[in-house]
């Protein structure tokens, strides 16, 4: 109880504090300290859930089970490392005159607010609150994407707001439909939006309504996950926002949106007793893997490139959850973890690389390894990891997804393999061009914080070689919940 309250209250308090003092130099320290405290609280919460089992608290409005506690821990961890990375990064941006002190205040405050909304979305038991938190997460990130106030950043933010606003409105309609179906079973006072209650009676919910609801929900939350054809906002938002924001968008927000879909899928599966929801997710997932793979080679902006790569991986995870079953769901959860860690590490490296080169255009970034071996190798290893090279964890999860596909849906395997191959060819060539050769950029005015990059990559490497038994058990439990 107290742990969960802390997990939610610390970022909120930090956001308020930073709204007042965010323009002082100490703001970056407050930001990191707040994120560290959140991480500690999330760790305590995790230990509590592992030892005592699922937790339902605060008038049943919040609950924590193996599925979301793992995402809460991941969110708190990446939030903390991102705040470490953003210290030198934002200071350099400030030195370059791209951001004024008041913008920095907005940035710091909104960063914490964003963390808070995501943690609420993950821990709430109420599907309505989940929606409200997702919408609030959109609003905070709209402000973050538009932070530089350049024409293209405003355009990206506008597009993001309109597309996700429309999308999430569909999700609200889906939520209303679920409430409608549940109210008939649970009655008006039965907490018909509370997931734990819904889970108990899911077999008795009206199947036609639930299947209609799921269509609206997957379109709605799918827009935020970046599922094709609703992905248009994603590359723009990643390219135009400050890099720490790109890192948390890719690493965390997409996961949270996908989490919302998965939660709803559990209910719909229970009500329908068919593979309808899974088929829909597999269809969206496959499309989302294939389309961006072919866009990758046409990208000129490095952050757009990795934005498209995030779409592709979200497609893969959606496909894995769509297949269902213990192995595929396990692989999906593992892939969520390793993708978050790897992609945020890549964005950390890319952020500093772009600062050194003074541009985000791939062709103008050269010789990173010579100029700064840590940034160069960080980017190179990150790219290899995200492309699914062994021994990194992404390989493990992709291997598991592919083998499950071969077993149950053999027709999908060649499509997936082709897409992964095309993505490899497109991305590897571009990254090679950036890390090797003669450097063109100038050195950074502050030492970059590259500890997060190697911490993340180290964790991904570890997950590729050896998944700690308690973590594996945890994934297994969560996979069982998803079904």
């Amino acid at each position, binding site marked *: 109880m107290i742990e969960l309250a802390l997990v939610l209250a610390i970022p909120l308090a930090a956001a308020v504090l930073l709204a007042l003092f965010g323009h002082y130099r100490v703001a970056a320290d407050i930001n990191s300290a707040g994120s560290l405290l959140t991480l500690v609280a999330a760790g305590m919460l995790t230990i509590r859930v592992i030892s005592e089992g699922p937790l339902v608290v605060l008038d049943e*409005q919040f609950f924590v089970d193996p599925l979301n506690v793992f995402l809460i821990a991941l969110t708190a961890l990446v939030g903390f490392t991102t705040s470490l990375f953003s210290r030198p990064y934002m200071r350099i941006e400030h030195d370059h005159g791209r951001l004024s002190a008041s913008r920095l205040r907005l940035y710091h405050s909104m960063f914490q607010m964003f963390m808070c909304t995501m943690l609420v979305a993950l821990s709430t038991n*109420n599907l*309505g*609150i989940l*929606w*409200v938190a997702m*919408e*609030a997460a959109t*609003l905070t990130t*709209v*402000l973050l994407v*538009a932070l530089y*106030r*350049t*024409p*293209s950043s*405003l*355009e*990206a*933010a*506008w*597009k993001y*707001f*309109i597309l996700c*606003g*429309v999308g999430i*409105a569909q999700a*609200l*309609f889906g939520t*209303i*439909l679920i*409430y*409608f179906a549940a*109210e*008939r079973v649970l009655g*008006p006072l039965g907490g018909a*939006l509370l997931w734990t209650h819904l889970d108990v009676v899911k077999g008795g919910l*009206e199947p*036609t*309504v639930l299947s*209609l609801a799921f269509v609206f929900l997957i379109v709605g939350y799918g827009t935020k996950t970046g599922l094709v054809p609703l992905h248009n906002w994603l590359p*723009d938002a990643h*390219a*135009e926002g400050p890099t720490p924001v790109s890192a948390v968008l890719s690493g965390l927000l997409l996961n949270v949106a996908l989490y919302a879909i998965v939660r709803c899928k559990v209910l719909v599966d229970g009500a329908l007793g068919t593979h309808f929801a899974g088929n829909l997710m597999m269809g969206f997932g496959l499309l989302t893997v294939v389309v961006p793979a072919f*866009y990758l080679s*046409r*990208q*000129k*902006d490095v952050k*757009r490139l990795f934005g498209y790569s995030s779409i592709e991986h979200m497609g893969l995870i959606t496909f894995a959850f769509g297949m269902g079953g213990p192995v595929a769901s396990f692989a999906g959860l593992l892939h969520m973890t390793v993708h978050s860690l790897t992609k945020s590490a890549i964005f950390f490296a890319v952020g500093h690389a772009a600062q050194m080169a003074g541009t985000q255009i791939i062709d103008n970034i050269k010789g990173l390894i010579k100029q700064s071996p840590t940034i160069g190798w960080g980017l190179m290893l990150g790219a290899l990891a995200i492309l699914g090279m062994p021994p990194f964890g992404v390989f493990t999860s992709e291997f598991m997804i592919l083998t499950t596909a071969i077993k149950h849906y053999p027709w999908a395997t060649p499509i997936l393999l082709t897409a992964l191959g095309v993505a490899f060819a497109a991305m590897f060539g571009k990254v090679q061009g950036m890390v090797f050769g003669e450097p063109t950029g100038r050195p950074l005015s502050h030492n970059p914080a590259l500890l997060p990059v190697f911490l993340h990559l180290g964790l991904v490497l570890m997950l590729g070689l050896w998944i700690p038994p308690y973590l594996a058990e945890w994934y297994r439990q969560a996979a069982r919940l998803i079904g």
Partner: protein
Amino acid sequence: MSPSLSQGIPLASQVINLCAAIMLLIGFAMLAQRRVLTLINLFMLQGFVLFVSTLIVALTTKQNHLLWSAGLTLLLKVIALPYILHRLIRRLSVKWDIETLLNIPTTMLIGIALVIISFNVAQPISQISGTITRATIGIALACVLLAFLMMITRSKAVPQVIAFLAMENGLFFAATSATYGMPMVVELGIALDVLVGMVILGVFFFQIREQFDSLDIRHMERIKEE
């Protein structure tokens, strides 16, 4: 639902159906309206109709929490949001703006098709719904889709946002007609999100105009797909 609800309903039910019909009509009117100022007034009217219908549902079914949500509608959609919008267009001096809309007849025809689709989609839901307002679920969905269509066909920022808010009206109407409203905490959260979103967008309008010298979204499109 309790049996008492099925008695003495016809009048209230008819009034609610009338409200639903007016909502739909306003949805179409917004689709074809070229003046920004009139658009805001139409939005206000739609909010008011929503308020009236929620109030009637609340009074006839004695669902007290619906009274609160009716009050919330009145406060937010009839007073606060139109006030913010009026202020915005005055300060942006786009009050008398007229947008050139292409193909109003085609848009209207697509709108009619959307209404037919919504009725078809909503039919199975209406059949199992026990609320006195069940006939209006299709209309609520139609309002959402019409607002969606409006969003696609508009190129100026302010009408796009009004379309977004109208969509929210439709959703709220759906919630009232299918289930007698969502739990209060959720409704409050949604209202807060809408209000905060509106304030953020208000700031955005000025930024957009400063950067693009126009509130026309077509002037954006500088980010090109490479």
